[in-house]
């Protein structure tokens, strides 16, 4: 009798094991916990931070609805939304630690700036079972950062933006023009300045000089003087954030040797709030490049997003990237089978198109969830675009647009769009 019981138990265990092994890994009903860190109250960044936070929450909601509709067990939840102030590293570090240790999240979406995203990456690299997806960080430093495959991003690297800037400047002033490069002294500014200079010289152009400045400097007059120093140049390429440029722009104007219409900048100024911060009188004629949405039906998505989030939705150009980051996180959690960092990273590549599979857009999430839950690879073609993460966790492609500011109004030139 006792022997029979033992055999019965062994048979039951064997049968259960067999049954579990034939089911997709995700059938374990994953509970995926997402947290976000963005500069919600930070001066100059708040519009982007608020939009990205809402967009990520929207993405999580849509995947949860898709999971219910597809009959897939488990959940994907936005556990906490942290405010990084103005992306100060100390606040970001504190927020990331809280999300990992107290909220036990599996994915962190954020933060806005490259420096803050690197700070989070440094924490996820030494934690277990958590991945960060930066939704607006563009510095090439993210590519080479030793993050033990825990730092991903949906936003294209500045190595691509440098090429877009080179295109825009050479179209305006010719390939051999003389350019003065100025940048804020951080990973974003220094990284893009270096990438631009390399690409510009390779293109046949000339560099008149390079000037860096610190974010919290007591004055910006010597920086402005250094920028306009020397013989005449054809154009300026200035890489900065609105808060610091708001101090530099008056100093540049006072030199009487700077014309905003000869200046090219980057995505941080592609918003009404940035123009308000700096002052439209200092930005008349400034042109610039910024990454743009490259995905499926962004107009319909924007309508759906605005309907779902009538508040806390300033409508910045990068919102779709935050949405895609959240959707990818949820899909990867379903695909992963377990919540180790390695499995989650593998899951991200499995749903980001690295292993092929059916392509699904943001409005086909139910079908995407079904496939992922069945253990199939998929290619999520988001609002922002497809990711197809490379070994460094960077998206394989990206699209850029050229914008200009006239009388405080931003206009776009679609003829100069560039895709990689």
């Amino acid at each position, binding site marked *: 009798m006792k022997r029979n019981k033992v055999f019965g138990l062994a048979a039951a265990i064997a049968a259960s094991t067999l049954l579990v092994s034939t089911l997709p890994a995700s059938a374990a009903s994953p509970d995926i916990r997402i947290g976000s860190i963005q500069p919600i109250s930070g001066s100059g960044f708040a519009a982007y931070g608020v939009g990205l936070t809402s967009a990520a929450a929207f993405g999580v909601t849509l995947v949860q609805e898709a999971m219910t509709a597809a009959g897939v067990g488990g959940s994907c939840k936005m556990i906490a939304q942290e405010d990084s102030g103005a992306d100060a590293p100390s606040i970001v570090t504190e927020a990331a630690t809280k999300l990992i240790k107290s909220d036990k999240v599996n994915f962190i979406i954020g933060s806005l700036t490259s420096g803050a995203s690197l700070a989070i990456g440094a924490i996820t690299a030494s934690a277990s079972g958590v991945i960060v997806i930066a939704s607006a960080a563009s510095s090439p430093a993210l590519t080479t950062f030793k993050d033990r495959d825990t730092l991903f991003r949906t936003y294209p690297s500045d190595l691509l933006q440098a090429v877009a800037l080179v295109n825009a400047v050479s179209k305006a002033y010719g390939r051999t023009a003389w350019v003065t490069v100025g940048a804020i002294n951080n990973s974003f500014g220094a990284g893009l300045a270096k990438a631009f200079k390399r690409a510009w010289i390779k293109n046949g152009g000339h560099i008149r000089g390079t000037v860096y400045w610190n*974010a919290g400097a*007591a004055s910006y007059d010597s920086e402005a*003087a250094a920028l306009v120093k020397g013989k005449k140049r054809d154009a300026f390429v200035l890489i900065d954030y*609105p808060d610091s440029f708001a*101090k530099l722009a008056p100093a540049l104007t*006072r030199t*009487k040797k700077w014309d905003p219409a000869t200046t090219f900048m980057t995505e941080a100024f592609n918003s009404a709030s940035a123009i308000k911060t700096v002052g439209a009188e200092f930005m008349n004629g400034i042109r610039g490049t910024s990454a743009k949405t490259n995905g499926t039906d962004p107009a319909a998505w924007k309508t759906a997003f605005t309907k779902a989030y009538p508040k806390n939705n300033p409508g910045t150009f990068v919102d779709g990237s935050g949405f895609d980051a959240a959707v990818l996180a949820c899909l990867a959690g379903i695909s992963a089978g377990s919540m180790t960092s390695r499995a989650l990273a593998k899951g991200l590549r499995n749903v980001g198109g690295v292993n092929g599979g059916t392509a699904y857009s943001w409005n086909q999430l139910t079908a995407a969830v079904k496939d992922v839950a069945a253990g199939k690879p998929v290619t999520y073609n988001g609002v922002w675009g497809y990711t197809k993460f490379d070994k460094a966790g960077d998206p394989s492609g990206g699209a850029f647009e050229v914008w200009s500011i006239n009388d405080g109004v931003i206009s776009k030139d679609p003829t100069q769009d560039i895709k990689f």
Partner: protein
Amino acid sequence: MAEFVQLLFNGLVAGSIFGIAALGISLVYSVLRLVNFAAGDFLTLGAFTTFFLATSIHLPFIVAVLLSMLLGVVISLILEFLLWRKLRRTGAGLLALFLVATGVAFVLRQTISLIFGGNSQKFDIDQIKTFEFLGAQIAQAQLAVLCCASVAITFIALFIKKSTIGKNMRAYADNPSLASVSGINVDRVIIATWTISGAFGALAGVFQGTVQGQFTNGMGLDLFLSILAAVILGTIGDAYGALIGGFVLGVVMELSTWDALLGGIPSTYKPVVAFAVLVIVLLFKPEGIFGVKARKV
């Protein structure tokens, strides 16, 4: 020549702001032996209060500045009566005072954010108008700050030197025990110290906001290390030294980028130059520029 004049002018403007802010820290240290780590946030308070009063309430700018200085004084005195006086009576040590001052700085900064929001602000002042002087572009707003700062510095220097309360402050700073038994009203000295510190901290914030054209709630924190360097350079506890230390620091930082000086250093290294100067001065004169070596008994 034009570049030298430009950098010298920029340095004098920055130095005058450092000096005014450093004065309060130095006075508080000389009288109370407290390094006021919250001093930077009084600059922020001054700038944001002036912005609010001038922009939202539409008071004349000068009235807004005076009211901001008054608020700086009131908050300083409230902190003295509620906090510092009690801590002194309980015999709080240097570390305890340091931690409390740091806590006060955090509370002030967050309160400013809560009341005025996190966005950057700017005064309604023409930032562009310049005069040409020896080839340099002298900004009207900066010239106004330099003139006002010079008046304020002269006033406070004379006040400390000539007025009875000023003499009492110096006497108390030199020897608190002797000053107390000599009949000096210590409470009055302390109140005067906090009054000058609060008012001049707020004024320095208004000057900095005017010069930069735009300010955030991190302004005071950003400047605090440079101000502290000015205090130490001019001998901590010496009010005149703080003023001179501020000017020296401002001018050295700006002139360090001058082409004629071996091509000048990149402007991102200006803070490094400031602290290098501080280290060199302290190596040869550990008591600071105006310090006197303690006599051996």
